[in-house]
């Protein structure tokens, strides 16, 4: 017999908590956002439209920022450098819904998996997240982010069962 406290049961049932190392999602893909000019403070850098992540038929279940230690070079054309931890500490990722309302935002640094002892950041949004409404914003740029850099996100998603 396994005893589960009502609080633990509630957090599981309401999808506010999940086992570490458990199923992340059905599919995962990398998304790259290169910069066409040096990043500026306060500018919203929107994600490119993505037919899969934009779909109301898929939900984002986990997200990771790939930094320059995790992978030295991003496979963009031309090749770019993923953000370093110092650069990531300057920005945030904003999740937005259909109406461009910000549902959640998280410091990029907090999404680097290796710095969280291998634990990926799980998500479960009640709102439909529209990928092209999501954006990255920097609030300081003591360490410049240039055209040689890109934001590399690994997004895990699952189809919504209708």
């Amino acid at each position, binding site marked *: 017999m396994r005893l589960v406290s009502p609080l633990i049961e509630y957090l599981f049932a309401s999808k506010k908590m*999940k086992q*570490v190392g458990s199923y992340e999602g059905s599919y995962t893909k990398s998304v790259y956002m290169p910069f066409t000019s040096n990043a500026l403070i306060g500018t919203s850098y929107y994600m490119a439209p993505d037919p899969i992540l934009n779909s109301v038929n898929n939900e984002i279940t986990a997200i990771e920022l790939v930094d320059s230690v995790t992978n030295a070079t991003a496979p963009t054309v031309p090749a770019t450098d993923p953000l370093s931890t110092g650069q990531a*500490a300057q920005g945030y990722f904003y999740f937005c819904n259909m109406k461009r309302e910000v*549902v959640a935002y998280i*410091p990029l640094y907090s999404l680097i998996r290796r710095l*969280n002892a291998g*634990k990926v950041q799980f998500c479960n*949004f009640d709102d439909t997240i529209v990928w092209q409404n999501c954006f990255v914003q920097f609030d300081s740029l003591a360490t410049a982010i240039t055209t040689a850099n890109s934001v590399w996100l690994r997004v895990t998603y699952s189809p919504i069962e209708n």
Partner: protein
Amino acid sequence: MNNLVIKRSQQIEFRLTGSIATGKRYFATDIPNLSRNNVVVYGIEFFVAGQEATTPTGNTVVTPSTGVVVTLRDNKKQEFMYQVPMYTLIRANNAGLIVLLKPRIINLTDCYVQLTNTTSITLGESVAANIYYDLVD
């Protein structure tokens, strides 16, 4: 082992204004849409400057985490989390685990931090945190 899942999250900050002193209460700054006792918080995470250089409102984040304690108050003025060291609430110090709380309605502007040591802390800086929450129905 379990970890938090994000439903909604928002950055909050405790601005160190007036003077820098140990024991003084620095309250959370007002966020109009979250300051009406309408937020059920179930997780919290703090950051230092190495993880988050500047808050979205443009304030520099404090560098050390070892001289700050955090108190959260609910909508009944109960200090349900009293003087917890900020260091304990930093994810990277907990092997990537975010601190989960029993879900409670908080009175955001009633929550505060206090300094226990002022070394390397400058007037005007902010103590930055992310709350993970649901809205009250």
